[in-house]
Every structure is written in structure tokens, then in C-alpha cells.
């Protein structure tokens, strides 16, 4: 039995209104649906949600948007969830759109103790507004700052009892990055295997990053 195993309720017990929450997944592939359900049940609100996208109205992060649990969303794409666009236009929810590669690097930088990174992406577009531009060898870059969160809610395929994680196919996406960048990291997994069952070379997220493990209650992705 893993010392890190918790029920969804236990794992999110300390989550407060107003928390900043990173949520893994790419159009609901690799999204921790069980933990999203728990946020809905628990009733926390005014969240700042950081994720690649806002899923669909009835799946993934989209459910939090529809239930108006987010006061602010940082994402690269919200087109698959019309409700996000509606709330954005109505001024009900603040939506910050970020190029996907920049978002990935910002989350990674947050986990890596870096202050930020210089990217050429967004130069000459509205993305550069309000940001410092730095020229290196005649080429312009935007300084994009690191992102961190109170919680990272991620989805992995398997964990061992130490919390070491492996992912499956395209369900990896932002999950390993977010696992490094939050105070409390909750990994929703399909399966927990004994220590030693995962080869050290196949582990993608070392268990040291993972605070709690939660077994997926939603149907498994296989």
C-alpha cells in the first residue's frame, strides 16, 4: 500500500477558494477527471486555473468553467468550449491566452527554479504587450515569466508505491511539467504497482514530486 494514496476528498482537503490550480491534459486526453469531479463536489471557487485548454463543456476543465469555479484561466486554446468564450466576452472570467510552447516553458521554469525564459514566439503580436523584449545577436525575444501553483492536478497511467509515474501516449502532455511546479501535486492514476515494478529508466516523473496519489474513479482510459 502506498503511503501517498488518498481518496479524492483527502487529497484536496486543504484546497481553498482562490487557489491557483494547474490541471494536466490536452483536450481532455490525460486530464484528471476524478479530481475535477472532486473540486466540483467540494465547492471551492474563485480558482485560477492553468491548463492547455478548457476542454469541452461536459468534460475536463470545461466542467469547472461551466460551473463558474474559475475567476481566471490561463490557457493556449479555449475554442472547444464555447462557454469559456462567452464568459470571457461577458467579462465574467478573465482569460489569458498563451502560446502553447510558451505555456509549457513557463510551467517548466516554475518547476525548475528559473525566473523565466526568452522565446521568439509572440514577437510582433499582441502577445508581446506589456512584456520585456530582449535582443540577442540582433534577434528579438520576449521575456516570459515562470508560473507556479498551489496545486497541480495531474493524470498518469501508472504509479509505483513511491509515487513514480509513467504516462501513456499523448496523455503525457503537460502532466510531467505541472508535476514540478506546484506546492501540492496530486496524481490521479489508473493503477498503482509495487516498488521495483517500474524500471528506473522508464519513469518520467520521479515520485519526489508527487504529494498524493488518487485512484481514477472515472472510466480508465484503456
Amino acid at each position: 500500500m502506498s503511503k501517498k494514496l488518498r481518496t479524492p476528498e483527502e487529497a484536496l482537503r486543504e484546497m481553498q477558494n482562490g487557489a491557483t490550480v494547474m490541471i494536466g491534459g490536452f483536450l481532455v486526453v490525460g486530464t484528471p477527471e476524478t479530481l475535477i469531479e472532486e473540486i466540483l463536489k467540494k465547492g471551492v471557487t474563485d480558482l485560477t486555473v492553468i491548463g492547455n485548454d478548457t476542454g469541452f463543456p461536459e468534460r475536463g476543465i470545461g466542467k469547472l468553467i461551466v460551473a463558474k469555479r474559475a475567476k481566471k484561466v490561463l490557457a493556449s486554446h479555449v475554442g472547444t468550449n464555447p462557454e469559456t468564450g462567452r464568459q470571457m466576452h461577458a467579462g465574467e472570467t478573465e482569460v489569458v491566452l498563451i502560446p502553447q510552447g510558451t505555456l509549457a516553458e513557463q510551467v517548466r521554469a516554475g518547476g525548475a527554479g528559473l525566473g523565466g525564459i526568452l522565446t521568439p514566439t509572440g514577437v510582433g503580436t499582441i502577445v508581446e504587450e506589456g512584456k520585456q523584449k530582449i535582443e540577442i545577436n540582433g534577434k528579438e525575444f520576449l521575456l516570459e515569466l515562470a508560473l507556479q501553483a498551489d496545486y497541480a492536478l495531474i493524470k498518469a497511467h501508472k504509479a509505483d508505491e513511491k509515487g513514480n509515474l509513467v504516462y501513456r501516449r499523448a496523455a503525457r502532455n503537460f502532466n510531467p511539467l505541472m508535476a514540478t511546479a506546484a506546492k501540492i501535486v496530486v496524481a490521479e492514476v489508473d493503477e498503482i504497482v509495487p516498488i521495483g515494478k517500474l524500471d528506473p529508466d522508464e519513469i518520467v516523473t520521479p515520485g519526489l514530486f508527487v504529494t498524493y496519489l488518487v485512484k481514477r474513479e472515472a472510466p480508465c482510459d484503456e
Partner: protein
Amino acid sequence: MSKDIKRERIARRIASELQDGMVVNLGIGLPTQVANFLPRGNDVLFQSENGFVGLGPAPLLGHEDPNVTNAGSQPVTILPGGACFDSAMSFVIIRGGHVDVTVLGALEVDEAGNLANWMVPGKIVPGMGGAMDLTVGARRVIVAMEHTAKGNAKILKKCTLPLTAIQQVDMIVTEMAVIEVTRQGLVLKEIAPDTTVMEVVAQTEATLIINDVKVMEV
């Protein structure tokens, strides 16, 4: 000409730009169709920005793996020799110049190779997804789009919509023409057999440099 025929023509023409060994990222929608027109046994490596290379065709019905979708959330396959990675690595590949060609749709393109394809203020603001990184990072950016929208030119002197990236487009392929973006401006390289140079010029707001125009294979 029906929308479908236009789109097939565009996709087919762009497919002929792709060579064995190239790493290619196809945008959602029309660009995705390019893969359908490659010769059998080709060795083009498709990258999917949600996190893998070796993107293959849609699986047989009932054989979908929920963890294997393209960036547009459609079920796909991963071919033997494919590899999965996280979003940071996906954009190391994209931003770092390791994608040889990206094919993207466009709302507007202009004479400087500027591209606008991610939002219409006050209307559609879906977000840029990976498009800004792809446009900046890929070695070659090919725009795949219909030549006009509801009769309005999309190839402009200067884009009016918020840009995706500045000066990154290398080639524009429409159902009417193949246009190369050069430092001197837009060069009309090919026109479709069912149009004329005059007609293309009439449907294009940007100035076209016209020199040696070939007939596009359709």
C-alpha cells in the same frame, strides 16, 4: 468549384512539397488533409504537437485508443518508430527548428509574410494553441487556404487582424495559385489550369511579382 474540390486541390499540391525524411506538422482542418495525398510508402514523419511523432491515419472503427488523438482531438494512430513526449519536448521540436515544414490555415497573409490565423477581435477568440510557435519555429511555413473568403481577398498588402507571427510565411497555396514569399514580395509561381493570371491578380489585394508562371498540377 465545390469547397471540397478546392480543398482537395490545395492539399494535393502541398503534399507534393513534402519529401521523405522530412518532419512535418499539419494544422487542424484543411492542412490535416495533406497527409491523404502522399504516395504510399512515403517516409514523411508527422509531428503532433500534443506530444508525439509518427502520427498515422485514423484507426479502424472500434480500435481507437483514447490516449492517441491528434491535436484536434480526433482518434489517430502512432506508426512503428513513433515516439511520445511531453509538451515541453513537443515545442523543443517545434520552436527549436526541428520541424521542416508546417502547413497552417490562414485568415489573412500579407506581402511581408505576416500571418493572421488565430482570432477575430470581438468574434472568434479560440486562442493560438501551438500556431504561434509553429509559425516562428518551423523551417518552412506553408499556408493552405482558399484564395478568398466570401469574395474578399485574404492575401493582403498588410494584414488587418491580430498577427500570429511576423515575416514567417514562405509559401501560400490556394485553389487558384501557388505564391512564394520572398524578400522582394509575393512571387506568383503557379496558377491553376482553370484560372488566369488576370483573375488571380483580381482576387489578390497584395501586389504579385509576375515573371515565370507555371501551371499548377491539380
